[in-house]
């Protein structure tokens, strides 16, 4: 006789499923329950063993990549909330203002051309590096439209690539690599910001070029990772995670805008 109704059967079913999952043979378990339950338990208990097979575990590669990306997103939030990317390694505000004033004087003043030229190959451990940073901001501020801004940002991204390469080859200490990584992230953030502004007015070109630039930076980091020393490696791995996160934001921006455009475009076949 089959009796699979009532809380007694439900409890028995829950128990026997757990026992079968634990490796006990079904037929032996059945002896512990009223015979009126046996048919129902025989039909249902084996199903529980098939359910576990529908799931799988994440691959180690996926786990590692997502972890990197999340670390990048957390770092971006922290830096964005604290002082903005550009202020990441700035000193106290008063000192920073004086430094900017001095650099502006040097850049815009009579001796500016020579200083800015000398600053070009500098790395963050050089006193001339702030000159390069300020000049980049000025270039971007004076870009006349989105296309010009995209060109400026592309040059800046290329500079970051070259700086990373030179720093790794020169075996620079971790502080320098961290500062470089922050500069690369700041460049990426400027891309994302500009891309969002341009996309708001329907221009997707900066987002496309920005994504390309960020991808190139990722490639350059990947190329340098095998030869980087342990200190540089830590900074590069972290940088890679942040760049991937930025690339993801640019991709999402492009996807959203394209879907929006496609939805607004009437179909020719209609």
């Amino acid at each position, binding site marked *: 006789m089959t009796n*699979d109704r009532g*809380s007694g*059967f*439900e*409890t028995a*079913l*829950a128990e026997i*499923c*757990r026992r*079968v*999952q634990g490796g006990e*043979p*079904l*037929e032996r378990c059945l002896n512990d329950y009223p015979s009126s339950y046996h048919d129902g338990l*025989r*039909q*249902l208990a*084996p*199903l*529980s*063993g*098939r*359910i*576990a*097979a*529908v*799931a*799988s*575990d*994440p*691959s180690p590669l*996926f*786990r590692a990549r*997502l*972890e990197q*990306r*999340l*670390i990048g*997103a*957390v*770092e971006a*939030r*922290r830096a964005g*909330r604290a002082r903005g990317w550009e202020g990441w390694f700035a000193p106290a505000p008063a000192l920073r203002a004086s430094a900017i004033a001095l650099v502006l004087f040097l850049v815009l003043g009579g001796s500016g051309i020579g200083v800015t030229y000398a600053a070009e190959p500098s790395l963050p451990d050089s006193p001339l590096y702030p000159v390069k940073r300020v000049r980049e901001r000025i270039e971007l501020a004076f870009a006349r439209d989105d296309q010009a801004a995209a060109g400026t940002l592309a040059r800046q991204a290329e500079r970051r690539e070259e700086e990373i390469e030179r720093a790794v080859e020169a075996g620079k200490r971790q502080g320098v690599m961290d500062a470089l990584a922050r500069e690369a992230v700041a460049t990426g953030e400027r891309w994302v910001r500009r891309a969002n502004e341009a996309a708001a007015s329907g221009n997707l070109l900066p987002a496309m070029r920005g994504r390309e630039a960020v991808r190139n930076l990722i490639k350059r980091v990947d190329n340098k990772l095998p030869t980087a020393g342990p200190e540089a490696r830590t900074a590069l791995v972290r940088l890679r995670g942040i760049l991937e996160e930025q690339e993801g934001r640019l991709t999402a921006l492009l996807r959203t805008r394209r879907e929006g455009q496609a939805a607004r475009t009437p179909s020719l076949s209609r």
Partner: protein
Amino acid sequence: MLSAGLVERAKANDSNAFAELYQHTVTPVYRYLSARVNAPEEAEELTQEVYLAALQGLGRFRGGDQSALFAWLFQIARNKLADHLRRRYQRPSARLDEAGFLPDKAPGPEEEAMKGEDVQAVRQALGQLTQDQREVMVYKYVLGYDNAETARLVGRNTNAVNQLHHRALRSLQRVLSSSGRAGRSEESQRGEAGI
């Protein structure tokens, strides 16, 4: 177990703390999602969405213990999954294999192919349960939670969980019988158990 103060540190944008929280929870979250979608790429994309949403919403999370954290993450996963399935069914151009109606592309040896087909059949049968029934099945058999923990996660008492469990297995049996796959595992399990 989560280390003390981990959630608070993660809320303060400590990347190491968030990474630890992620490492601790990602396998159950991924398994939860992979039980409902066919392609690993879908499960990966959804898992990423869950953690990015968790990062955004962590400041609003109230609760410090592991149980509350998992309940919160599964809630996010459930919402993301619902959005994903809605999008999939709203997209008329989706291919059948994208929409999860066909078995995996590479069948391999015959036995593997049959196993793959059975997995697909069970996954589709799970999709026909009520949400509560499905949650009970997934928590108990995919994630291995006991009755008490399952009850906590679905917000019911253990008697109600036993009832949902029974009804879920009955429905699964009915759906699998109609697709001609109800008896496979009984035979194979008997074989495996030497009965």
